[in-house]
């Protein structure tokens, strides 16, 4: 299944090194439209513009956490179906459970490999395509 490489992606993480790594890996997978935010709080107004087809976010950020950002996206009428991937060091079972209950589409724990990122993205967009087909 070919994922549309022209999609707009928002990368959210308070560490610039991590944003760079995620972007570089996504670029190697063929994506090229990226924006960045350094916190859920700076990301949220950007997300509200409706520009993004895919959000990749960290959990642990000072002003607004990734899980909070996810919840806001899922409760917004216009944004609720936006594919959302968490890439985070948070690895407690209770946290993973919370993330799935909040509607996350994928969960990657740090440190991660390019292969993992690739396979999770494919899974996410497969599911998105399935949802569209069944509508």
């Amino acid at each position, binding site marked *: 299944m070919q994922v549309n490489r022209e999609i707009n992606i928002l990368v959210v993480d308070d560490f610039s090194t991590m944003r760079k790594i995620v972007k570089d890996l996504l670029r190697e997978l063929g994506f090229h439209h990226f924006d960045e935010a350094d916190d859920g709080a700076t990301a949220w107004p950007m997300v509200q513009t409706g520009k993004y087809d895919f959000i990749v976010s960290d959990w*642990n950020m000072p002003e607004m956490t990734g899980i909070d950002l996810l919840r806001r996206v899922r409760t917004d009428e216009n944004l609720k179906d936006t594919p959302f991937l968490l890439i985070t060091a948070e690895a407690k079972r209770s*946290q993973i459970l919370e993330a*799935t209950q909040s509607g996350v589409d994928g969960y990657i724990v740090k440190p991660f490999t390019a292969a993992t990122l690739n396979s999770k993205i494919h899974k996410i967009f497969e599911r998105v395509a399935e949802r569209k087909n069944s509508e």
Partner: protein
Amino acid sequence: MTFSTQIDQNLVKLLLEALESGELSQAGVLLDELTKVRESELYQRVSELTQNLHQTLDGLNDSSLLLQTKHDIPDASERLEYVINTTAEASNKTLESAENALNLMSSLQEATFKSIAGSDPENLQNMISQINSELTEIMLAQSFQDLTGQVLNRVIMIISSLEQSLIHLIDQSVHDYSAIPDRDKSAEEKSSDEMKGVGPNVTAKSKNGSTQSQAEVDDLLSDLGF
């Protein structure tokens, strides 16, 4: 520091007499008598202060010195060890990659010159030299590991020292260090911490209830019907 006791003037008179008449051992006894009162007052004061300190420590609540000493300081040390180990691992991996790449460049050089002798070997040579120098830069950049390692070791020493001082203080105040209880967080507090994010689970304690790899995460996700 003032004392409430009045100096016994009679004893002083007797002391003076003993000194004037050269009765030194008698003078010694009298001097001891005089200072004994002061000494016991001093001991009393110190004992009062110790009792106060004990009571103060008793009255402290959970986020107190006691809990911080027993739990947070060793926790901080474990985290710093983790930083050292992780950066060392990363450095080693990077160095290995750089070395492998350099070896590959050697082979590439040989192979290329063999197959295209006649087209532009000088240009190729330049490119290869540039790549080699990039790789060498990568290796040199790893020297940060040594510097940060030294700094972190210092921090660990400082914290260790602080820990010892605090343990000593706790002992002096007649508290039992080994009787300091575990941190008691309510389920709500734990849950609230987790929602904010607790960072990488590096201490032995924090590994409880956490997944250790993407494979484990994926297992959990599929158990949840993902």
